[in-house]
């Protein structure tokens, strides 16, 4: 991870739409080279935050700076370094796919034609089809292509794979993994498909009701949450289990499954031994961690 100065600095921003507060005093710093998963329920404020970062929305209060420039003042030089995909993004329906790609590529001096050709072949994109006649999944593929074709330094993906079929989604993930090999490329990805997201991210930001409730390195987060399968070696399990930080517990006479927080594996094993039990310790998938964090906020 690159600890250089952040390329995105969000400082106490708030944003409301009518009576709905979409962002509530949000702070966020995005350092270059990070792959950030932005998670949250529908209406948590993820899309609003992403759009505010690229200047499509203006905050009611606070400050947003991207590449050192206030979001409202972002110009061609900064925007040429940002790629953006949104699942409901509008494209130019009257153009063919080929025309649209040529039109968009004309804006970027570093458009990668090899990447474009490879992407078109891998995703089986019909360049002579009208954009307006494409299915939602095909439109999303095109939207992804025009966002990554110029190899942006900052790639913002807002539900990029929601309309893709499983095979296309797998290919998209492979593509993302290829993209993140490039040093100093920063990706902000918001998605409900957490099983996909956790394969690529190294940082997690969880939002709830317009606030950020978790902003942690993904590895550190995973180390904090464990699932323990506890099996009594002789006789039934004790009535009171001695583990601290228990968030969930399901048990019967001889077995228990616990979700614990802030307990090291060594500590868990010692405690299990102390009560004559065997402990199988597993890391939790991102989806479970997300649920526990949101539930426990």
């Amino acid at each position, binding site marked *: 991870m690159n600890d250089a100065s952040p390329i995105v600095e969000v400082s106490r921003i708030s944003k409301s*739409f009518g009576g*709905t507060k*979409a962002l509530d005093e949000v702070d966020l710093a995005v350092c270059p080279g990070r792959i950030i998963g932005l998670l949250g329920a*529908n*209406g948590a*404020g993820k*899309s*609003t935050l992403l*759009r505010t970062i*690229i*200047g*499509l*929305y*203006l905050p009611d209060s606070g400050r947003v700076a991207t590449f050192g420039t206030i979001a*409202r*003042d*972002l*110009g*061609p*030089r*900064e*925007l*040429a370094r*940002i*790629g*953006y995909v*949104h699942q*409901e*993004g*509008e*494209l*130019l*329906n*009257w*153009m*063919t796919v080929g*025309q649209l790609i*040529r*039109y*968009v590529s*004309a*804006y*970027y*001096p570093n458009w990668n034609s090899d990447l474009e050709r490879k992407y078109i072949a891998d995703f089986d994109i019909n360049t002579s089809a*009208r*954009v*307006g*006649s494409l*299915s939602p999944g095909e439109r999303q593929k095109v939207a992804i292509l025009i*966002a990554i074709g110029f190899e942006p330094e900052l790639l913002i993906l807002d539900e990029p794979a929601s309309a893709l079929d499983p095979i296309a989604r797998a290919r998209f993930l492979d593509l993302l993994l290829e993209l993140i090999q490039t040093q100093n490329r920063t990706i902000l990805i918001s998605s409900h498909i957490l099983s996909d997201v956790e394969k690529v991210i190294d940082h997690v930001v969880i939002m709830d*009701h317009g606030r950020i409730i978790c902003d942690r390195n993904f590895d550190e987060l995973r180390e904090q949450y464990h699932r323990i399968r506890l099996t009594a070696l002789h006789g039934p399990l004790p009535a009171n289990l001695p583990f601290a930080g228990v968030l969930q517990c399901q048990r019967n006479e001889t077995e228990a499954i616990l979700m614990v927080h802030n307990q090291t594996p060594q500590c868990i094993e010692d405690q299990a031994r102390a009560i004559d039990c065997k402990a199988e310790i597993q890391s939790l998938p991102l989806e479970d961690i997300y649920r526990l964090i949101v539930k426990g906020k």
Partner: protein
Amino acid sequence: MNIVLTNWKAAFLREKGSWFLAAEAVFVSVYGFAAWIRGSSESRVIQDVLGGLLLIGPVYAVLRMQRGMVAKPMLFCLPRYRESLRALTFSAALLAGLGWATFGPFPPDTTSAEVYMNLAEGFLTGMVLYLALTTPRLILSRQTFTWLRRAAIPLSIIALSVFPTPRDAPFVVWPVLMPVLVALCAFVWIRLGDMECVKRGQRITLEDTIERGPAPGPPRTTLPWLEKWLQSLMERQSYLHGGRYVWGQLYATIGRLLPYWKWVLGLLLGCTWLLGYMGQSAANVVFAASGCLAWIQRWPVMSPLLLPGGRKERCRATISAVVAMSLLLLAAASGVVVLSWLLTLFLGRTPVEGQEPYVGLRVYGVFWTCLLVPWFSALGLLGIRMRFLGELCTIIFVVMLVPFFCVLAIPIWPAWALRVVVAGVFVGGWLSFLVVLRAASIKWDLVSQRVISEN
């Protein structure tokens, strides 16, 4: 639950702007009727054209509503669906009849008795026309419908050519034409009440839709040389230069019209033919009304596609696009004027009115096209940000246009006064547009947000 009222309510909520325009059309008709009574035939023409244009929105809204209602098979399961579809269709037909009676072509010196006859005939004609547009698919067999669709254009030409007015053939109209129109309405009423007939029509509609497959999208452009030229203008600018963004947005704005160039050409030809008979006042209204195309345009400042163009570039691109639209409309209107002078060599009396000869249009009228573009652009931008306020302002603006045109048409103004007024409208329009655009560029969100529910 009353199905008919529920559908009308849904149509109103979905197309609020159209219904406000309908209310405004009523106002226009009242105003025009008053002017006509005072003996101003010019005002009547202006009222006819403007009111007719205003009705396009609500007619579209009604057709969409009816189509939506018929397309839902589950509605057949609702109680009293049989009556509700028929009630919905005929309530819309009644409105269409009223509209046609109000805006129908009346000779300027019609007597009182002829007014009532014209109104009655116009009312029934409007109803039959609406039913002819919306119900054949539902009530006719596939074969009959296909034949009727093919014969629609020749039949329409014949009808327009021989359709008598009460003045010309009063003894034909009342004993023959009126009963025929009433019988057609009764026929549709009975057929719409036959559920088996309607179900069959709906099944045919769905089968045809499935056979057609997914919508092909806009037609393929056949002017690739023009597209290439527009793209080359863009590519002449340096990368990351604001100029490249501006030209690119201009290409995107104008380019969306290219696939429809044949339709545009047909529309211009049709306008040329009609306006030559309707007179210069009507032409001025149509040319000015064409500016309302700017109201529905998605300008570059609100483009959701993220490209290397900041808010300043978007602002410049929008100004360029509005100027380009004004020039395009000016060119189109100029083409209509030139063509009208060519057509005077060939066309004589209109087959419909039979009163006024075809007259070439005057050149000064083309400048009306670019007069209102900035006004409607400003109102359109305002409507994106504040929908209700934008629509309300648009309606108030359009309402003010009616007396404006009527007053300008009065031949008492010296030329210099007219020039001052027109210059004032032009400058005022651009100032209004620039003020709204500046606010949009500096302060507004550039894309519309979804309503986010927290529950």
